[in-house]
């Protein structure tokens, strides 16, 4: 496929790896904050091809993983109600909620569906609006999660519903923003991250000017990076070159898709439908100004208000160490529950659920390889 296959060329990858080996003189830790990049890094073994001095930390870049447990609980409670069609992206369905009496109908959306709830997987939020138009006697709720990349699509669904008076449509919003999470990581006294790969599709929508004050304030290089192996290797090379030369600039590796100012029409509709709010991040806690909620003009479409759930609170399970993993302090194998009490079939925490979660990526790609090595077949 054009614009995909050429960025997987093994010869060019070897050249980038050789270039990286040629410039590294000391240990460095670089963090990616995008589940898609985490998945590619682990799938292609990029972290293991790099010189030993380089550590790649997998940041809180998976919206499924950072959605707080109380929002999952709200989804479960809405989905279990009669006359509701609950629509979601597929990877939210296995995320466990809390152990709470209100979740009697199921511990995740799949269980609610198994118990008779009308839970549907959709590809786009616009599909959920169509379901609402086709089912005027039902209350249709879309689980609007995601980073800046997904906000324009979710904003359009709400805007379209308002314009076309689709009054039985609403959204359960748990949108998060990348730059405040980067700042929270950098401001932590235990921070070990020295450079960032910024997420290519988040920046496709938002541009990269908002990263410049962060790079300057914390003196970290930030390289906007794509998702294919060559993108990642080039992004890592550019970040290391800055670190070795003592520079801290925002650079753009993914220039075939990312423009400095981002996608202006998308930003305009997002700013009309959503406003910046404080958000809780699963495993990390509340981060100021780190999410999106509906503006007053679109508050009628807020599922939390319609279903009277805005005051609901829940506690997180303590066994899952997702917070430490997403801040780069621990790798998945360091968790005592990894690959025994916590597996993709029986996840204790969200990073084991989504294929973009660090735990699930390690389970999928590293576990098999380790097994093969043990059995002597090698890979």
């Amino acid at each position, binding site marked *: *496929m*054009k*614009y*995909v296959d*050429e*960025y997987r060329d093994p010869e*060019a990858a070897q*050249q*980038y790896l050789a*270039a990286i080996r040629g410039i590294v003189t000391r240990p460095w830790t670089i963090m990616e904050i*995008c*589940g*898609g990049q985490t998945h590619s890094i682990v799938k292609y073994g990029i972290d293991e091809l790099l010189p030993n001095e380089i550590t790649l930390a997998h940041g809180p870049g*998976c*919206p*499924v993983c950072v959605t707080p447990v109380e929002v999952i609980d709200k989804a479960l409670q809405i989905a279990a109600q009669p006359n509701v069609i609950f629509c979601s*992206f597929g*990877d939210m369905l296995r995320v466990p909620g809390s152990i709470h009496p209100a979740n009697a109908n199921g511990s995740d959306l799949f269980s609610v569906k198994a118990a008779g709830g009308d839970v549907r997987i959709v*590809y*786009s*939020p*616009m*599909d959920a609006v169509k379901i609402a138009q086709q089912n005027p006697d039902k209350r249709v709720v879309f689980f609007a*999660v*995601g*980073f800046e*990349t*997904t906000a*324009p*699509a979710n904003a*359009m669904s709400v805007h*379209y519903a308002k314009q076309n008076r689709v009054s039985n449509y609403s959204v359960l919003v748990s949108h998060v923003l990348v730059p405040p999470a980067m700042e929270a990581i950098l401001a932590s006294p235990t921070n070990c991250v020295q450079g960032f790969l910024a*997420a290519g*599709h*988040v920046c*496709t*929508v938002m541009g990269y000017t908002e990263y410049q004050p962060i790079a300057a304030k914390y003196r970290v290089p930030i390289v906007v990076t794509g998702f294919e192996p*060559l*993108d990642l290797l*080039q992004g890592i090379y550019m970040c290391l070159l800055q670190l070795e*030369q003592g520079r801290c600039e925002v650079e753009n*590796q993914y*220039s*075939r*898709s*990312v*423009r400095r100012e981002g*996608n202006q*029409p*998308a930003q305009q*509709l997002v700013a009309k439908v959503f406003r910046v709010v404080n958000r809780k991040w699963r495993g990390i806690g509340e981060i100021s100004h780190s999410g999106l909620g509906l503006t007053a003009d679109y508050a009628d479409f807020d599922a939390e208000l319609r279903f009277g759930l805005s005051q609901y609170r829940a506690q997180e399970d303590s066994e899952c160490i997702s917070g430490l993993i997403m801040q780069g302090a621990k790798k998945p194998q360091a968790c005592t529950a990894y690959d025994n009490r916590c597996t993709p079939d029986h996840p204790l925490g969200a990073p084991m659920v*989504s294929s*973009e979660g660090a735990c699930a990526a390690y389970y999928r790609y590293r576990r098999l390889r380790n097994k093969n090595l043990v059995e002597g077949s090698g890979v």
Partner: protein
Amino acid sequence: MCLAVPGKIVSIEGEDLARTARVSFGGIVKQVSLAYVPEAEVGNYAIVHVGFAISLLDEDEALQTFEYLQRMGELDELESQPGGPQSRESAE
């Protein structure tokens, strides 16, 4: 979740926020909203996320990853020549 895939625009219909395209992803064709890329034309490659084109790929910029490698190779050759520049900074 931010997965977005490049595809080629094969046809366009509608206007403004209702403008849509049929986009081919290596032969699999899907209907995609062009609301956020009003400049899109048939033949362009778009990055598509959950049913919306969020950018058009720039063909010249797409070559950067390979040209960057080439430039690094040329620098290495310069550096390996006797009397050539000793560091990257001085070679730039």
